[in-house]
């Protein structure tokens, strides 16, 4: 029978191959699904893997979708590496959009172009504020950050609704729930004509580099991760878990808030109850599929965006239902998690059911990465 056997060393070949195998399995299941639905599987794969990247415009749309995912996931990766489970990035994103949007609404025709900077800064502050509630309650009262951050998502949604239905409602908007359209001067500068891609892309790429440096080249980043991995060791080394708590949560809140402000003053141009588009939750998956590594997050965010856009295209090109996208995303994540096992274990044929050789604790923990 098939048995898993621990490898003495995590397999480097497998760590490269695992995402590819996972993708291959997902594709195979996908082909099966397409055939089952009576659709041409080649055409089916095309809409998910070719059409979203086949032209500059299509690629730029992948970018538009991926930028918020990358920003939020980078922040979450810092959190998760510190063993802090912020799953309320969606709420922090909304607060960022609210704060950034508020600044954008103050702009008039005479306002300087630099207001964009203020908008983004306000966005960061909004996200930081929302995450600070989580950090404060965790720090002072030991309240679970998973639950508080999640509950605050619902609160943020209602806060947004209250503002756009009430005090911030566009007086000329026929009582529809929307703010005024922001003045042109607040538009986040676009990278090229004819595309919605804006400097958010550069901000996201800079954030990738910065968070890589922070995580792997700074003492503070090192402290955070040690605290996440081995709290006892961190205490022994004199690393403050409180500092780690605040840093990780505020960084992730700020990143989500930044993404919110970029979205509000970028493609949206006004606040409506539809600001939350699920980026905060999707970014959790992006962070994990990217293995909590800044570069990995970029690739997984791009793949995730391709799936989203492919899901739209599958409807308009092939008449397939939207639900298929969710099935694919879930499958990919499942198979990836399963395939990652192969980095640390190998599959062996065994005649008898012998107990699995125990991996050492060291390799075992590395496994989780």
């Amino acid at each position, binding site marked *: 029978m098939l048995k898993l056997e621990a490898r003495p060393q995590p397999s480097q070949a497998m760590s490269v191959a695992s995402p590819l195998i996972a993708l291959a399995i997902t594709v195979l299941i996908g082909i099966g699904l397409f055939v089952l639905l009576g659709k041409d599987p080649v055409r089916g794969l095309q809409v998910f893997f070719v059409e979203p990247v086949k032209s500059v415009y299509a690629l730029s749309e992948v970018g538009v979708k991926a930028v918020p995912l990358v920003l939020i996931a980078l922040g979450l990766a810092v959190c998760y590496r510190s063993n802090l489970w912020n799953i309320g990035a969606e709420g922090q994103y909304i607060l960022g959009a609210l704060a950034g949007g508020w600044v954008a609404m103050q702009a008039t025709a005479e306002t300087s172009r630099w207001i964009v900077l203020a908008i983004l800064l306000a966005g960061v502050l909004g996200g930081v504020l929302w995450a600070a509630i989580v950090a404060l309650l965790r720090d002072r009262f*030991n*309240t*679970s950050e998973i639950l508080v951050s999640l509950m605050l998502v619902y609160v943020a949604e209602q806060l947004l609704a209250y503002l756009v239905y*009430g005090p911030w409602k566009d007086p000329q908007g026929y009582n529809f729930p929307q703010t005024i359209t922001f003045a042109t001067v607040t538009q986040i500068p676009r990278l090229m004509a004819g595309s919605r891609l804006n400097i958010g892309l550069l901000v996201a790429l800079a954030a990738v580099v910065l968070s890589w440096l922070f995580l792997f080249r700074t003492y503070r980043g090192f402290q955070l991760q040690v605290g996440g991995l081995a709290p006892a060791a961190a205490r022994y080394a004199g690393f403050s878990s409180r500092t780690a708590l605040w840093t990780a949560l505020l960084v992730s809140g700020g990143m989500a808030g930044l993404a919110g402000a970029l979205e509000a003053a970028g493609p949206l141009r006004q606040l409506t109850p539809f600001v939350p588009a699920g980026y905060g939750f999707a970014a959790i998956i992006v962070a994990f599929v990217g293995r909590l590594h800044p570069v990995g997050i970029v690739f997984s965010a791009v793949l995730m965006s391709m799936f989203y856009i492919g899901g739209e295209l599958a409807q308009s090109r092939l008449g397939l239902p939207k639900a*298929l996208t*969710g099935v694919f995303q879930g499958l990919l994540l499942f198979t990836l998690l399963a395939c990652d096992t192969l980095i640390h*274990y190998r599959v062996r044929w065994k005649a008898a059911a012998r107990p699995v050789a125990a991996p050492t*604790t060291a390799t*075992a923990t590395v496994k989780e990465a």
Partner: protein
Amino acid sequence: MESLALLLAATLNAGTVLALAGLGLLVNERAGIVNLGAEGMMLVAAIAGFATAVHTGSDVLAFAAGIGAGALMAAAFGVLVIWLNTNQYASGLALSLFGAGFSAFVGIRYTQEKLGPRPSFAIPGLADIPLVGPALFRQHPMVYLAVALTLALAWFLYRSRAGLVLRAVGESPESAHALGYPVRRLRLAAVMAGGGLCGLAGAYISVVYTPLWVEGMTAGKGWIALALTTFATWRPARVLLGAYLFGGVTMLQFHLQGEGVEIPSQVLSMLPYLATIVVLVLISRNPTWIRINMPASLGKPFFPGG
């Protein structure tokens, strides 16, 4: 007075969904496993239950199908996290995502199906007591079952030998392993039992609570159930209380709106979530309380012989 009694009745009904799922997740977490896939399991169970009810007309079979679907999903999750040692949080999220997509996908042909009127229930004699009668004794049997399950689970965890073993597996899998218990198989059993209960909650939603199928119909109830376990410091009776409390605040905010209270509905809609945060703070401000009750190995993988 009468409106209070009715509020109570609605609260019990709304709380039952949360209680069933919350108790299931409690069983998981008592064994040391956090399953963020509750929402996915509930959705798949909801469509499984609904489809079964449509085809067979039997609620009992529908609940069984829901339990089966939930347990099956949980088993897939369990094999991943227990044997392949994948990250519990990520695997749970994958389960949620897959469950939402899969249920929507297979449910397409059921969106226009309808179930006939569900029979009403009344406990003879008691149901006719003024005020409290209709509130307490005219509920769907599942409402009483949730209470019974809570008591049974409390007995199981704290009074039975098997419950002691389960808690040991969650507290210290290494010691349980050293004592010769099959830790991984026990954990899988707990995960599947928990999935089954989440499945029962899902089927209750689509067959009884709102007898219809639409995709995404659990609308976040799985996440609330997840919050309940911590809220309840992993005690069954408190899960039930927490479920009723959350259901009660939800119904109360609708009640206040209906009475024309001059508070913006958006602010009222925040109430259940703000109330949850406040109670969480009150509970967890005493760290020893949490530490005493929280299964020590919660969320951590276990390597036999490690």
